[in-house]
Structure formats: C-alpha cells, structure tokens
C-alpha cells in the first residue's frame, strides 16, 4: 500500500488502544483510514451532515471524555479514540395525525425526560454545539417551538444519548418536537403544497424518466454543471 507523502508533523493517536503515528492535519476519520482501518459503519457523508461518525476521545493527560464527528475533528497528539457508530435507543413509532403539540404528547412517548437533572452533560457532548439540555427542558414544559428551534441542527449522532446519566435519548425527543412544530405550529407552506400538486399532476415525470435512462457519463456532466441555488 502506498503511503501518502506528507510534510505534516506526525502525531501519535491510539485507535481502540493501539498506537499509531499519523499526519497531524488529518481528521479522525482520515487518520484512521491512514492507519489502515476501513469503515464499514460509522462513516456517511464525510461532510459533517449525516451524524454517522460519532466518536469519543480523551486527550493525553485530560480528565475529560469528549465527543466529536470523526469527519470533522482534526487529530491531536495523544488522542485516545473510540468509534460509536451506533447507539442503541428505543425509537418510538407514532402517527403525527391526531397528536397535540404539547408536553403530554412528548411525555407519552418519552416519559424519561422527566428524569433530566439539568446536569448539561448532553450539551457538553454535542459536536454541533446544540443546547441539548435546554431543548429537553423546553420539551418537558411543552414549549415545542423552542425545542424545535434549539434542536434544529441535530444530526442524531447519538453522543448525547450515550452520555446522559438519566438515560434520555435527546435526539429522538428533539425530532418529535420538530415534527410537531412543523405540522401543527408552522403548518404546510404554500410552495410545498404547490410543488406536491405539480408532482402529482405529472409535471416532472418526463424529466425524471430522462434522468433514469441517462448514461452515467452524461449524468455526471449534468450533475456537475447543474444550477445551484444560493444558500
């Protein structure tokens, strides 16, 4: 296997306890691949958006167990790393129709939120810098709007749930809050309704069919030269 030439200063990391020397400019994910690991789980978009690469680490001499997305965090010398590609949770199924956007609804599906101690460990663990404890607390008192807005950047990476001493799964709570907020407090927006109508009327059928049958090389060109909507 060809090793990448790098002018970077090398740092020492420990992956699941095993020592490796890696270039200091790499992310945890790239550093692990540099050491020969291959990701089967725990890697997704590689862009900090999907939440698949939750990772726990502790720095040499540090008392603190920290969390990060492996595709975003740059390695540091003396880092002890463990991937948390999946966190076991009991995700409830519910039909949004007929639910009320209030505290009793959230308590019905996730009653464990009443165990929250306000210790803020979840917020400390969040790689997205979300005020996790605050949105759990907002859910508890039925402030669905605040819960939805505070949790908006959540990727469901699972680190908050792994760390919570009250065994709450905050990201499932936040997702329910956002669903309730969207459906009952914001309501369907007109442009979405218009687009759904257009789709149902078959406006885009021929375009989709064309894409489905397009040769790969042409599809690539089309993708790379597509119109981008400014953010």
């Amino acid at each position, binding site marked *: 296997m060809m090793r990448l030439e790098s002018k970077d200063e090398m740092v020492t990391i420990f992956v699941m306890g095993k020592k490796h020397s890696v270039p200091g400019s790499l992310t945890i994910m790239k550093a692990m691949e540099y050491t020969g690991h291959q990701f089967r789980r725990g890697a997704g978009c590689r862009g900090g958006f999907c939440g698949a690469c939750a990772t726990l680490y502790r720095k040499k001499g540090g008392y603190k167990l920290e969390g990060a997305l492996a595709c975003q965090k740059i390695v540091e010398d003396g880092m002890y790393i463990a991937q948390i590609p999946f966190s076991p949770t009991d995700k409830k199924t519910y039909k949004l129709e007929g639910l009320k956007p*209030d*505290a*009793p609804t959230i308590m019905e599906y996730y009653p464990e939120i009443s165990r*929250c*101690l*306000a*210790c*803020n460990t979840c*917020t*400390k663990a969040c790689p997205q810098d979300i*005020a996790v*404890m*605050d949105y759990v*607390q907002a859910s*508890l*008192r*039925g*402030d669905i709007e605040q819960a939805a807005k505070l949790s908006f950047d959540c990727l469901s990476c699972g680190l908050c749930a792994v760390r919570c*001493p009250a065994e709450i799964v905050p990201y499932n709570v936040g997702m329910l809050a956002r669903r309730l907020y969207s459906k009952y407090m914001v309501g369907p927006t007109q442009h979405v309704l218009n687009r759904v109508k257009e789709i149902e009327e078959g406006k885009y059928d021929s375009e989709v069919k064309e894409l489905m049958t397009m040769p790969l090389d042409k599809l690539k060109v089309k993708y790379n030269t597509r119109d981008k909507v400014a953010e």
Partner: protein
Amino acid sequence: MTRIAYYPGCTLKTNARNFEASTLATAEALGIELVEPGRWNCCGTVHALAKDDVMHHLAPVRNLIRVEELSNKGAIDGKQVVTLCAMCYNTLKRSNQVFNQDSDKRKKIRDIMTKEDIQYSGNVEVIHYLEALRSLGWDKVTARVVKPLKGLKVAPYYGCLLLRPRGIGVDDADHPTIMEDLLKALGAETVEFAYSQKCCGSYHTVQMKEAVADLSHRILKQAEVAGADVVAMACPLCEYNLGPRQEQVKKQYPSFNSIPVVYFTQLMALAFGLDDEATAFEANRPDPSPLLKEKGLLE
C-alpha cells in the same frame, strides 16, 4: 415598574396556567414587572436531601445563574427571583442555601458547570410572590382593590413546602399569617381551620389516589366545618390533590360536599376587577364560578 426576575417552573406552563395568568396580571396591576429568563430548566423538583447528593443541586443553581445573568445585563432591578409553585420555591431556596453554606459542594457544583458563561455568586434571593406582595405593603394591595371580596369566607391552605423547614418558609412555620393578611387586604373574611398546614399527599397522588383522597377529604372537611366557602392556596400539586381529586373523594365519601379550590392570585385578580383571562377560573375543578356568582362577585 419594579422589575423582578420570575421563575415559572414547568407546571405553571402546563397544568397551572391559571396560577400564572392571574399572577402576571395582578403583578402588572401593582406595578411589578415579572421578567422571565429566556431559558430556564426544571427547578429540580425535589430538594437534594442526601448529604452527598450534589447532582440534584445542578438544576436549581443553574436557574439562579439565569437570574444572575438577567441582573448582570440590567434586565431586572436587584437580584431577586419570584416563584409561584411552592415546590420550585422550596427547591431553589434550599439549594441556594446549600451553595452559600457548604463550600465543598459549592466547588463541586461550579466545577461541573464548565459550560456556563458566569460563575454563580450565591447572591440571588429566592422569594415567593406572597413575600413580594408583603414587601410591597398590604395597603398598596388594598388600594388596588375595586371589588372587595365582602362576604367571602376563605380558608387559606399552606401545605408544607411554603413553610418548612424553618428559615426557608415564607412565614412562621406554626402560625403563618401571610395568606390571611393578603386575603384581608382583598376584603375577604378568613377562617381558621386545623388542617391548613397538613400534607395534601403530594406525589402519592400518582400511585395512591385513594390515600390522597383520604387526606384531601380530611383537609376539605375541616375547611367546611370552619365555615369556608372556598379554599385558597399557592401550590399546583396541592391544587390538584384538593381540587380535581375531589372526584375520587366523592367516590370514597358519598356525603362529601365539594368545595371550590383556587389560587390566592385568582382571588386577587377578582378583587382587582381584572378580566376572565386574568382570573382564569375556567381551569379550576370544581368550578368556583357558581359560588362567586352567588356571592355577587362574578357576573
């Protein structure tokens, strides 16, 4: 307008909205602006009684940090925070005391709160709305009354958390008068009854509703014997156990006569001549409006 921080607590935003609505409206009528912090968390619900329990002080102390932040940015006058729910009052005040008196716990609490922008100084003063009114002066309350509660016999019910332990309570633990003083300032007649400080059964209401109904029956019966038309109180949990729980009392004691149970703030709103949104009687069970109509206090 005097601006005082206001810590609502979860129940005030859910089951006890009538308590909050009547409080905010009466405070405004008296020239007190209650300022709610932009973010706050559960009070902690139950004070950490075990000596080695630091974890349960985090929630209350965190709320005191929110109040100190309001103070630091000049959003409130002074460093007081008003609470309504007796549980919140008790929990916040007792944790504040622990924080100030126990340097070991203070250090541990601070060490855990690494994400907070400021370190809590210990200087916030936790008060109950009743205390804020007492500080304002009962004469000021009386001056605002447009519809004196003449002929209304009210049994003030304190329960436990407003008065105990000594040094934390809003008034003398054995002979409180603060609610009587307020009710008299509103023109009502107060009745003395033996069980004004007896436990309502608290959280046993979740799993032992029969036992709670027994306690409620005992308390309400005493109020009735003392000649009360209505029971006034300051705690959402007491309100639930003495109010909606009367359904269960009736099942166990068929001869029981139901008696309305209201927050003291609702009687204030009534005496101040405020509107239905402020009195918010429609949320009370049993419904107090037939009685108040009979007394000529409600149209």
